[in-house]
């Protein structure tokens, strides 16, 4: 016996009552967490998702805060200050110091325009409007469109999905056929047709996006509902005589919440993308209103000479899309108990 442990004699003494109480095997040491608390804890561990959440919060605060306090009026035209590049005080790097290359030479655009005292952090556009204010304003419009459209599409999609899954049978088959037909036309084509009928504008973009993008949500919710409705607690609720509506709200919705939240995180960026595409094509938001898409469209015209006019809105758009995607991924992992920690 080579591996005999040498234990001191006093480790064989009987346990005292206090020791026994401390070693209670039935006691649960960690605080018990609800599903949402657990998900939140896991989300906080995911660096990408956590950073995205903070970034999104900041973007929301700045975009909506600019409605009250804006660095400049986004629609104030200053023709004499047109096309000034970015100038951030204290930064001397070319591209952020108010200089630009003209006819092969780097010149100070602010001096040339006679605006030596002014600082436009993101520069100005072709009408001399402050680009930072316009980007904030555009972000706000884009976010409003995306959020309202998502809210509608959430309502339609979840209701449709629960109804279809709950009813089952022929109703379900018929409702799924309708979805298949909608899915067999590219989304953007339908959105464009709807906007033509509703006349371009913010409201029609919201309606068009909401009416076309609920299918995905409906499918996911239906699949989950089919699974959940076979569970015992639903049977119990039915046996106790709960109405279908009450079961849907009290039992189905809470159990579907993770699917719904995750899918929403992917619906919002796609709505932002659709809005940007529409405005970029020229049937979205029209001037003097601005969205990220119209700013990109304006910026793209001058990209060769004034690249900053497209870089800034493009950067903001990409950050928003990236953050929502990362947050969606993070939430999916957080809600999935199988995720390894």
């Amino acid at each position, binding site marked *: 016996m080579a591996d005999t442990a040498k234990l001191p004699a006093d480790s064989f003494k009987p346990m005292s009552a206090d020791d026994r109480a401390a070693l209670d095997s039935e006691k649960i040491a960690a605080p018990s967490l609800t599903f949402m608390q657990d998900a939140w804890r896991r989300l906080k561990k995911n660096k990408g998702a956590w950073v995205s959440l903070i970034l999104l919060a900041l973007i929301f605060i700045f975009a909506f805060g600019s409605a009250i306090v804006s660095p400049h009026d986004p629609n104030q035209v200053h023709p004499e200050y047109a096309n000034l590049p970015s100038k951030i005080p204290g930064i001397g790097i070319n591209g952020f110091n108010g200089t630009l290359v003209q006819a092969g030479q780097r010149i100070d655009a602010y001096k040339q325009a006679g605006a030596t005292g002014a600082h436009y952090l993101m520069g100005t556009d072709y009408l001399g409007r402050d680009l930072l204010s316009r980007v904030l304003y555009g972000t706000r419009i884009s976010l409003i469109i995306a959020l309202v459209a998502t809210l509608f599409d959430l309502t339609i999609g979840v209701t449709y999905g629960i109804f279809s899954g709950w009813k089952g049978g022929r109703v379900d088959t018929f409702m799924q056929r309708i979805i*298949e037909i909608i899915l*067999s036309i590219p989304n953007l084509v339908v959105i464009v047709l709807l906007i033509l009928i509703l006349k371009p504008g913010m409201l029609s973009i919201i309606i068009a996006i909401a009416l076309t993008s609920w299918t995905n949500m409906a499918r996911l919710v239906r699949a989950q509902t089919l699974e959940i409705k076979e569970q015992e607690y639903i049977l119990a609720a039915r046996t106790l005589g709960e109405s279908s509506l009450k079961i849907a709200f009290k039992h189905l919705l809470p159990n579907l919440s993770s699917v719904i939240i995750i899918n929403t995180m992917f619906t919002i960026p796609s709505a932002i993308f659709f809005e940007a595409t529409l405005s970029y094509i020229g049937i979205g938001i029209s001037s003097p209103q601005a969205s990220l898409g119209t700013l990109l469209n304006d910026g793209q015209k001058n990209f060769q000479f004034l690249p900053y006019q*497209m870089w800034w809105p493009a950067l903001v758009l*990409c950050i928003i*899309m990236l953050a929502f995607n990362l947050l969606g*991924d993070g939430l999916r992992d957080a809600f999935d108990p199988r995720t390894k920690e």
Partner: protein
Amino acid sequence: MAKYLAKRIFYLILTLFIVITVTFFLMKLLPGTPLTNQAKLSQSQIALIYKQYGLDKPEWQQYLLYLAGAVKGDFGTSFQFSDQPVSYLLSSRIGPSLQIGLQAMVVGVVLGILVGAIGAMRQNTWVDTTTTVVSILGISIPSFVLAVLLQYYLGLKAQLFPIAEWGGFIYTVLPTLALGATPLAESARFVRTEMVDVLSSDYIELAKAKGLSRMGVIYHHALRNSLIPLITIVGPLAVNIMTGSMVVENIFSIPGIGEQFVKSVLTNDYPTIMGLTIIYSFMLCVVLLFTDILYGIVDPRIRLTGKAN
């Protein structure tokens, strides 16, 4: 199989019929006529132009005529280019769109498989992180932003590729890259997730235990099984490419149907818009049908019973 196919083709025709009907009546809701200078035309001239476009008949007759024409591939006459049948306009433009779309799909999916597989093989290392970052960026950057950047940096600055126009393979490179980014990113993400799952399954352990080489295990067992579910995202990717092509074709001035769609929307060319809507949904239906059948063939666990899901 034959029964399933017949059923699917019946649904395809039904879908197209509904699409045609809905678009036709939606278009009738819109204001606008093919007349460009209404005030200067006499009553008889207007009547003649209406007759030329078949707008003199009651709407239900127009609808039936349109339906009969659509079956034969005749979508009426363009409002914008008088005397040009829509079918001619579209058939001369579909080539470039198909070429770029297919190239983007093939390049995107093949590279995506590669990137995803490499990421899964080196799970939780810097290689994996890099490939994940690449794929999340590909999903987050809209194709039209990428298109402008590619056009400027690779086309104008580096002079590697022509910046616009159409005429030969070299002209397709930039649009293909711009459109292929999303399929690349999506399929890379998909393949990585699938492959991580597959790599931890028992039959991979068995293959390793048999003494197969690492590449043998990856190629014969892991990759093949990870790729089957990839077929399901081909449909959504096709939608993505069609959507992207509308803007990307505009940026690179490619004479394709995406560019035509935007042009027709901006000029209220209703017959062309209708024709394009039908073409788009036809293409998508065919892709969906094709992927469903393919899925049934490669994965014998899926029974083609004609039931959805």
